[in-house]
Every structure is written in C-alpha cells, then in structure tokens.
C-alpha cells in the first residue's frame, strides 16, 4: 500500500502531529488529562525517514502547498474538496485509480484524498 498518495497522507498526518505536539497549550491540556507527551525528536526522525520514500516532485508540491495552506493534502467528501469546498469534477471519481494516484484539486491545487463512504 506504500504508494505515493498514501505516503503523502502519512506525511500530512505526521506534520499534523508535529504541529500539535509543538503547541504548548494543547500539550499542557493532554498532560493534565494524564497523558505523557515527551520529546518531539522521534517524530523528526520518522519524518526524515518518510520523506526519503516520497518522489521529489510530489515533495516539492507538498512543500509549496504547505507554505500556503494549513494542509497540503485534503480529503474529498460528498464530492467536495475539503480544502476549498468546491466540487470535484466527475472525472476524478470515474478513474479506478482515484484511490492511489496523486491528483490535485482543479480549483485550489491541494492534493486530494478520497474518503470512504
């Protein structure tokens, strides 16, 4: 399953975790619940390891989008891009590869991930 799209989803999830872990207020809230949130270092090395597997051209797109938006990869739900909330053209769904091939929103350029259901 380690195709490029899923690696990009993993990278986005990891970056979400890194960002949240770096948020002191949020980390304090988790710690007050009794969770331990330690050093961020393991996440940085996981990230370094992950990006080695991602195609350079996709990484460039990811980095460029990340500098502009909160998230570079966004889900498609109810035929809508959850980045810009515009509808995604039917051609996106008609291809059986929608599940695996890296495609971007025609409107906002974000990388799309089709959710189940």
């Amino acid at each position, binding site marked *: *399953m*380690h195709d490029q799209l*899923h690696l990009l*989803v*993993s990278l*986005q*999830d*990891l970056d*979400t*975790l890194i960002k*949240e*872990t770096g948020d002191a207020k*949020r980390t304090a*809230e*988790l710690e007050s*619940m*009794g*969770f*331990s*949130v*330690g*050093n*961020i270092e*393991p*996440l940085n090395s*996981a990230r370094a390891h992950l990006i080695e597997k991602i195609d350079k051209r996709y990484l460039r797109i990811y980095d460029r989008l990340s500098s502009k938006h909160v*998230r570079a*990869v*966004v*889900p498609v*739900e109810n035929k809508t891009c*959850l980045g810009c909330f515009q509808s995604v053209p039917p051609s996106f769904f008609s291809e059986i590869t929608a*599940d695996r091939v890296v495609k971007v929103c025609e409107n906002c350029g974000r990388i799309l*991930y089709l*959710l*189940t*259901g």
Partner: protein
Amino acid sequence: MIIRLSEFFEEDLFISELKAKDKVGALKEMTEALVNSKRLKHGEGLYEMLQQRESLGSTGIGRGVAVPHGRTLAISRLTVIFARSEAGVEFDSMDGKPVHLLFMTVAPPQERANLYLPVLGKIVETVKSAKTRRQLLKASDFDEITEILEEADEGA
C-alpha cells in the same frame, strides 16, 4: 462543552476480548476493526500514526487503561474503538501494569466541532471510577456497555 460518551461508542467497533497480548498487536487489531467496518480504507497509515504518537510517550495512562489517539486525514469523523482484554495487554503503561480497557480515539484534522480533546478528556474522567472500570470489564454485551456509559454520562 457537554460530551455524552455513550454517543461515541458503536457496536461494530467493540472488541469484547482482544487476541493481542502486546501494544503492537493491539493497535493493529483495533485498526483492523476500523477497516472491517468500512470506516477506513487502509489500516497501515493509521497504525503508523498511532505508533508515532506512542513514540512521544505511552498512552497507557495507568489503572489498566490505554487511550491511544491521533488525527488522520483518512477518517471522516471522530471515532472510538473500544476493546477489552481480560488477560491484559503489555502497553508500556506509566504504572508498568498491563491494560484491560482500551479506547482508541481517532479524529480527522479538519473536524469542525473540535470534539477530539473534549472526548479524550471525558474518557479519562469516566474511567477514573474503579466501579465504572469494573463494570465495563464485566459487561456481557454491547447493550450493557451502553447502559454503563449512559449512567456515567448522567452522573457527570
């Protein structure tokens, strides 16, 4: 924010007795339940993300409870997978003891209602009661679990 925990538990995401005996196995088995329920297409990404979260510190918070959690793009709404283990799962818990009650909580990053932290907090608060933990372990089916959670919701 008032959270009614009973509303977040679902019968097809309840594992009455885990086969797994360790953390890796438990995370995999619970992720698999999510894939089998069709709420998630592929389990690998979620499993990796949960492991990355564990690398910051175990979510085994003591008293036989673990609350593995994280956000992933691959899920459309906040979801709780509840599993039990009578024998206990080795989870690198803070008190070094095996866990018997596991509440895996996953949420999408774009979740607008922002229920993620409140739900985590509510789970932790609910299982602080030794009586509730005992009842959850003894319950014979999902209906009983729902009743216990509803009672805990009312008591809050």
